């Protein structure tokens, strides 16, 4: 009994020492990158803040821009973005070095480690010059008093030790290192996509601890709490753009719409908040990089057991609710100006992706493509949530996934319910 007790005390001591060491290690990462000598350009800072869509997370719905307070759902609880304006409740008094530590080392001015919902694996890649430009621009914004809200994370994710452990596993500070085997456009595209634009924040395939395989991992996954799937950018059958013409991808990133392909849900927000702002050289660079991503097919789960009656019911629902806009044969419809009004569903990747999450989501909740200067008056789709139950959704999705030449597999009611549950906030 006594030996057991001594053993337990010893074990607890070792754990405490190891934890303290881990925390001390992560909190005392040093970085000697000096402040850049280039004069700070507010214009450049504004541009970089747009590309990084800082305001996307750091603005509450209907709230003052960049004043924080947006609730961000994660599998570990809800985090609330802090105030980035130069108010006492925000970044007042932050020096360029303080801001650099936050972006590069993921550490707040008071030494606390930032929760990894802030995409530190991406922002660490940003150069000192760009970080200083961002800092200069943020400090020039009007201050807004907006006290920060405490994160609502579940135990044990709510303490610094957990963040230190996460960082030990997944975070390695370091600015982007150009690949000498690639040209300047590819490297610029990689720097932006992996860094400030933080594409992997959504498109990475995350493990159970929310870790990814680096900023160039775009295997995709379910965005818990948002109810959308970020599809893989490595698979042309999912959302890979390896086979898209350069001009088409540039148009899509700028306008949120190209040849019947529309940005939906969180990606519409990204187009509006970020990619629409890319200047032409950066737009071309990002397109170059994304089109050159390595190809990897995602695993396709076996579909539900084929059920002709379910598909038949789906075909009936399609004729009743969908065909008027999407066409009897899923061919889509153009308007009188020749513009693509309603996308073709025949060949649509949202229909045939391995997961039916986004298809179900769009049918249930409808949507518009983002209204951008290049595509200011998108046509829209009404929500069908009140009209179609889980059985109907399974039937309609199964019909779509097995019609128009598709062989994407059927969906049963259980799968619809499972996707709903998986997408809901924990």
């Amino acid at each position, binding site marked *: 009994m006594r030996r057991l007790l001594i053993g337990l005390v010893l074990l607890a001591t070792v754990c405490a020492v190891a934890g303290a060491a881990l925390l001390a290690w992560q909190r005392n990462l040093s970085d000697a990158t000096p402040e850049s000598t280039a004069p700070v350009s507010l214009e450049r800072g504004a541009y970089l803040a747009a590309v990084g869509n800082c305001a996307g997370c750091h603005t509450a*719905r*209907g709230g003052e821009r960049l004043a924080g307070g947006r609730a961000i759902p994660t599998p570990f609880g809800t985090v609330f973005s802090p105030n980035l304006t130069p108010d006492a409740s925000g970044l007042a008094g932050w020096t360029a070095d303080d801001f650099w530590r936050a972006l590069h080392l993921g550490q707040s001015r008071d030494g606390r480690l930032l929760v990894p919902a802030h995409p530190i694996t991406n922002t660490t890649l940003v150069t000192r010059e760009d970080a200083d430009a961002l800092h200069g621009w943020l400090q020039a914004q009007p201050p807004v008093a907006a006290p920060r809200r405490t994160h609502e994370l579940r135990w044990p994710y709510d303490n610094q030790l957990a963040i230190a452990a996460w960082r030990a596993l997944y975070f390695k500070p370091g600015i982007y290192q150009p690949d000498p085997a690639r040209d300047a456009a590819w490297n610029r595209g990689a720097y932006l996509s992996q860094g400030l634009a933080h594409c992997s924040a959504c498109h990475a395939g995350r493990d159970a601890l929310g870790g990814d395989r680096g900023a160039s991992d775009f295997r995709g996954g379910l965005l818990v709490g948002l109810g959308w799937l970020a599809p893989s950018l490595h698979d042309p059958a999912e959302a890979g753009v390896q086979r898209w013409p350069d001009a088409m991808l540039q148009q899509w990133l700028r306008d949120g719409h190209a040849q019947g392909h529309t940005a939906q849900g969180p990606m519409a927000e990204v187009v509006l908040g970020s990619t629409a702002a890319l200047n032409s050289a950066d737009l071309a660079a990002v397109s170059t990089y994304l089109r050159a991503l390595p190809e990897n097919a995602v695993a396709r789960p076996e579909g539900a057991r084929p059920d002709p009656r379910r598909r038949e019911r789906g075909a009936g629902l399609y004729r009743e609710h969908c065909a008027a806009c999407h*066409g009897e*044969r899923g061919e889509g419809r153009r308007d009188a100006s020749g513009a693509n009004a309603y996308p073709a569903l025949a060949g649509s990747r949202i229909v045939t992706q391995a997961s039916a999450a986004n298809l179900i989501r769009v049918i249930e*909740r409808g949507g*518009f493509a983002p209204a951008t200067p290049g595509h200011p008056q998108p046509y829209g789709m009404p929500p069908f949530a009140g009209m179609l139950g889980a059985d109907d959704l399974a039937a309609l999705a199964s019909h779509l996934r097995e019609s128009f030449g598709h062989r994407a597999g059927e969906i049963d009611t259980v799968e619809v319910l499972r996707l709903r549950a998986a997408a809901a906030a924990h």
Partner: protein
Amino acid sequence: MRAWLLALALTAAQAPAQAQPVPDTLAQREVPNTLAQRALACTGCHGKEGRAAPDGYYPRLAGKPAGYLYNQLLNFRDGRRDYGLMSELIAPLSDAYLQELAGHFASLDLPYPPPQKPTLPAAELARAERLVRHGDTARRLPACTACHGERLTGTQPAVPGLLGLSRDYLNGQLGAWRSGQRRAQAPDCMAQIAKALTETEINAVTQLLAGQALPADPHPATALPAPPPVRCGGMKP
């Protein structure tokens, strides 16, 4: 067994129908390049041409002042009103486009549904009528007509009419204002008014309003008859 055979026969009868080719004229039809076509995303819930859904939950949009409709779109987008489907749907749209959609519904001049017969005793309805027309100065309650117009058909550019709406809808909105579920731009005058009314008064007023037919001229008044008695953030479009 008979049911089985019937089901089999029905399935057999439906199967070939599916294989029928679609006439090309339909497949090639173009949609009109209009706001009405784009607004079909709204009328799925708000009823054909925005005349309201039969359930009383999704309100009429047709003929309401454009500034009012636009303000509501902003309220949904910015979280002052809370209905997930609505907020998500319009989230990626620009202010200019929301204004155009609001203008489209405002421009529709369509007949209104018949009034709902009130069930309350005449004395209570008379009290409601006094509140609607004169308010209650002692409780600092302005008359509905002071802002919503003498005819209660609303006032341009941003005050909605109160007639042609279902009782359920009116009760729902006043209830939402009391609970803070529905808000407007500050100062939120309707929240103050809804909180000052008793539940009995709300019930009587909505019975009266929903029971009243639209006047011969159902359009919103062009301007307020006098300066508004309370300050309302939502009055400016």
